[in-house]
């Protein structure tokens, strides 16, 4: 019994691990697809938990898992900095890794994730591709309190303004209100919608009303690009206003296919799930190689454009099917 087995289970039961998200979102169901895939491939059982309403629910779920004597947890902390103490507590009782969002100051064994700042910059590059001559850009997002949202936004802004790259761990943010002007590009504003798709769409509509020269809409959360696309189509401005975005909602993918959406950045969520399970399993098996030296396992994001849309979509469908609840 090299390291993995929890003394409470006495080695009699098979180790069980858990995958905890930061909320309820289709994104996480794709991750769950990766988890299910890994369960089958690697022969380990993994519970998936999605906290309904923020931090409280997440903490409660983690507590329950610890109470159950779970062997390993992969979690996406909602407020990493401030959850450090609690995560350290958890790390004492189980094998803890973070995924999607890191808690660098905590005793987690490793972090699996995307560099959202870098991904933001990649999205900026997509915008540049879409608008070679530059122009006015507007950003749409659900909520800006999430670190990944702010990092993405900053990546986009820095890229569009041709600023030097910032260090991913310590990003300086531009203020939210007001336009940010660069040589070729102007980021007019960032509008939030509190995860209400109707608001996301009406925000896009209002942006087109207010800014006649708007040339590109950038949607940072999964439902934003489709909402923008909808609004643009209805306004009859298809092609005139470019759309770039994040994640892989079907409507956005369809847009890429028909050429109405320029491109999207996919974090390949299923890889989060798969890699989390794989790493935890290896840790539990006592594999010294499981965790990289710098404790960071980067999941590469994928730039999806018309060029690779078909194969990407097929992969997504496969994972979706896997992620369905049994």
């Amino acid at each position, binding site marked *: 019994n090299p390291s993995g087995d929890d003394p409470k289970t006495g080695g009699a039961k098979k180790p069980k691990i858990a995958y905890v998200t930061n909320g*309820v*979102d*289709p994104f996480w*169901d794709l991750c769950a697809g990766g988890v299910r895939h890994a369960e089958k491939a690697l022969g380990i059982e993994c519970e998936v938990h*999605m906290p309904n309403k923020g931090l409280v629910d997440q903490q409660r779920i983690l507590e329950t898992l610890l109470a159950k004597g779970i062997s390993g947890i992969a979690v996406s902390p909602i407020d990493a900095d401030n959850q450090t103490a609690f995560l350290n507590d958890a790390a004492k009782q189980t094998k803890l890794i973070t995924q999607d969002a890191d808690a660098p100051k905590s005793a987690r064994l490793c972090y699996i994730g995307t560099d959202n700042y870098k991904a933001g910059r990649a999205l900026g590059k997509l915008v540049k591709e879409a608008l070679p001559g530059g122009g006015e850009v507007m950003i749409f997002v659900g909520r800006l309190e999430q670190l990944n949202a702010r990092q993405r936004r900053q990546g986009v802004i820095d890229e569009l303004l041709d600023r030097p790259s910032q260090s991913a761990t310590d990003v300086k943010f531009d203020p*939210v*209100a007001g336009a940010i002007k660069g040589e070729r590009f102007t980021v007019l*504003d960032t*509008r*939030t*919608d509190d*995860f*209400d*798709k*109707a*608001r996301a*769409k*009406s*925000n896009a*509509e*209002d*942006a*087109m*009303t*207010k800014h*006649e020269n708007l040339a590109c809409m950038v949607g940072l959360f*999964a*439902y934003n690009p*489709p*909402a923008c696309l*909808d609004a643009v189509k209805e*306004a009859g401005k298809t092609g005139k206003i470019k759309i770039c975005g994040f994640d892989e*909602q*079907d*409507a956005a993918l*369809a847009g890429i296919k028909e050429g109405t959406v320029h491109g999207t950045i996919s974090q390949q969520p299923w890889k989060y799930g798969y890699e989390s399970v794989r790493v935890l399993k290896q840790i539990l098996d006592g594999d010294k190689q499981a965790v990289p030296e710098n404790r960071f396992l980067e999941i590469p994001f994928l730039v999806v454009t018309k060029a690779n849309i078909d194969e990407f979509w097929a992969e997504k469908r496969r994972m*979706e099917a896997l*992620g*369905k*609840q049994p």
Partner: protein
Amino acid sequence: MKKNILGIMALFAVVFLFTALKNDSFLNAYNLQNLIKWSCLYGLIGLGVSFVIITGGIDLSIGSVIGLVASLLALLLSKGRDPSTCIALVLALSAGIGLMHGLLITKVKLQPFVVTLCGLLFYRGIARYITDNQSMGFSGHDTLDSIFSGKVAVSSQFALPAPFFYLVVVAVVAALFLNRTVWGRYLFALGNNETAARYSGIDTDSLKILAYVACSLLTGLAGVLFAFELNSVQPASTGEFYELYTIAAAVLGGCSLRGGEGSVLGVIIAAAVIRLLYNSINMLGISTHLEYAIIGAVILAGVTVDELVKRYAAARRTRQQAE
């Protein structure tokens, strides 16, 4: 029974004029079309909940019913079922939900707040479960799309969005029902004094059930319209919080939560005021962080001024009589 809707009209006019003066694009056709579209969508559920509020009840499940209807519709359509059957099915489901609410409230005598709060949780859970919480789309249903979210051009410049027509039909029917038919009168009577209504031989239970069915049915219809308007549904979030906006609109529009009061026109204007506020905040470029604060403050100011004006007028009348 007739409540003053001048206050809400004035509020609308003030916000409208203010924004129009501050921003040139506000009055262009595109923006007005959007404003009409969203106002009508929310006005529709506002009208639905008004029926329930007139009986002295409440419906907190509206947002979740929208989520469930949209999710289920997407699911059924994605399985390749016949579109009109699908629509009929989800509308029947919403009516069924209303029927269940009504039965629980009248026959088991549970409180409306409780029944529909449980509904809020339950339908949301079901929506997530049946769809495995996947976002779903409505692409490839062009006929349905044009029926539920198309536009009808009235001039080369201006086109009226589909929800407008639904709202007009519903509003006319609702206004006729409430003000011209006996059942409408019964609804007001039972909302004010249920015993008196029962003693007058009115079948109060059936009427209440009817109000809940109407509310859920209109919510279901709005769910379909929202689905095609947004072209996509997130089972966990589509419709979330709508009940609160809707109830706010109903109250702002002259419904009393104590029952027995309500006006179709008032509710529609109130729904429009709330959408107008969102639009104005965007048009004026105010930080979205302040959105809630502004909307909350404006609604509160609206009802406060309304109340104070009414009181002042009453005091003036008394004083005049004294002279």
